[in-house]
């Protein structure tokens, strides 16, 4: 369970990226974080595992305050948090398998990781995860030989290899095309359900968020302006979050995406069709 209490981040330039954000995420709940660029979504995600240092507030992960940890304690806390990145952030020159196993770095001593002699249970878990995300054949391929969607799936496997208690996801679909985006979101949601894993997903595509997550938090200028079910997200709320101009522009481009997707993939007799129509209906 994740609990944020008045989390704040103020840069040396005076920029208040986060102004007292508080919310709680229960076990198994998936939260979608939406908001305009510069609202602080990425900063918020990175403050939770201290990749960015918060300047105020507390972060409780199952009653341990992450904000006060340092050194070995911080590393031990980080290994309990899995993170999935926007541009995949895989180590390009290492193989898929090495990237997935690097999720266990927080658990193995240096010499083991150096010689790549991970404990067998970790290796078993890695193979099983690669199966789960559909990349069993690619285990020994170099990461830079994969497509965008495949790389993101390796990123997911790496995060899960940690056996995390919390999943942080930073714009997982920003670098992917619409169809792959939906596949990735579906995969993430299924996995969170299977493992009852709480997750905070920073997502720029509001349609995608509404389609998949349980709960939406809207962030504007470092403050929470909406917190509730996706169904409560109407035009008025969205205008409040994004501002009038931006929201109309987003609607227009979402309609364009839907039309493109329908034209390119539209005739597939799979469940893909429903979201496409639903998106067209929303716009």
């Amino acid at each position, binding site marked *: 369970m994740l609990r944020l209490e008045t989390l704040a981040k103020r840069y040396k330039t005076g920029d208040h990226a986060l102004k007292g954000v508080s919310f709680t995420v229960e076990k198994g709940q998936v939260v979608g974080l939406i908001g305009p660029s510069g609202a602080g979504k990425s900063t918020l995600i990175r403050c939770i595992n201290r990749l960015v240092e918060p300047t105020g507030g507390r972060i409780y992960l199952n009653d341990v305050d992450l904000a006060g940890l340092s050194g070995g304690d911080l590393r031990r806390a980080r290994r309990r948090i899995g993170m999935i990145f926007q541009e995949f952030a895989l180590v390009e020159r290492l*193989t898929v*398998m*090495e990237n997935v196993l690097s999720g266990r770095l927080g658990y193995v001593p240096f010499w083991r990781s150096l010689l*790549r002699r*991970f404990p*067998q*249970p970790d*290796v*078993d*878990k*890695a*193979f*099983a*995860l690669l*199966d*789960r995300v559909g990349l069993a054949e690619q*285990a*020994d391929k170099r990461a830079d030989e994969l497509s965008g969607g495949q790389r993101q799936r390796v990123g997911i496997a790496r995060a899960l290899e940690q*056996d995390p*208690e919390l999943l942080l996801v930073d714009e997982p679909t920003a670098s992917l095309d619409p169809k792959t985006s939906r596949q990735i979101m579906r995969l993430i949601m299924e996995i969170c359900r*299977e*493992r*009852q894993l709480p997750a905070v997903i920073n997502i720029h595509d509001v349609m995608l968020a509404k389609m998949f997550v349980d709960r939406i938090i809207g962030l504007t200028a470092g403050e929470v302006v909406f917190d509730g079910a996706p169904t409560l997200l109407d035009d008025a709320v969205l205008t409040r979050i994004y501002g009038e101009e931006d929201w109309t522009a987003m609607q227009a481009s979402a309609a364009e995406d839907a039309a493109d997707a329908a034209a390119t993939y539209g005739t597939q007799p799979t469940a893909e069709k429903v979201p496409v129509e639903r998106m067209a209906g929303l716009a």
Partner: protein
Amino acid sequence: MASVPTAGPTAGRRWRRPPVLIKDRNTRWLVYGGLLIYLILAVSTVEVDWQRVAEGLERGLRFINGFLQPDFTSRWTDIQRGLIESLTMTLTSTVVGVLLSIPIGIGAARNIAPPWIYYICRSIIAISRTFQEVIIAIFFVVMVGFGPFAGFLTLSFATIGFLGKLLAEDIEDIDEAQAEAIRATGASFMQLINYGIQPQVMPRLIGLSLYRLDINFRESAVIGIVGAGGIGGTLDVAISRYEYDSAGAVLLIIIGIVMLAEYSSSYVRRWVQ
């Protein structure tokens, strides 16, 4: 924590890291084995007179002392003369070398030079690059006598080889489309060079010339050992007389000038761009 099952088709499957450098197993053993054997043999040929080394350590300490407490004054006239020789050699040889390397570099570019010019220019560049500046300096000293003029000739020749090769490679690598476009307007050979080739090649040429200036200064500090002028001669004399404090002074001056050149080169580069 509901993890993925550890029993089933994937359990117990072994994984080893695939080879990073050499994929083929046999080649790998051959290469690594060969290198190891070579290493052992090479080390065994190094005969060290450990007693001499032990005795030398005392002298080494004296050198370190000399480096930390350098003596600029007792040999100042020699140092000054050597320094002036080095600096003047550096500037003049770099300028002349750059100027000469342009025609030779153009002549060594396969895509714009006729074959016989190409071979001559490539040979000049090869000779210049193969032999260390000191060897070339020896020959120039024989030809024109001791002193910085020989050093000037040496460094100019070395610059021609260095810049000429890189220039030729750059010209051979240019975007053919741009050159073709200029040629299509009916431009002459010189105009082709000026509008088609120069803009693509010039920025790097300037950067490399500044780099060569740095290298030439460092070389100018060495060729004095064989009599081609510069601060190397002063250094040689100081070391052979075990005057480590003077030697330390010379070394510090060299390091200082190189550091200065490094800092200012980034400014000069930005200013030229």
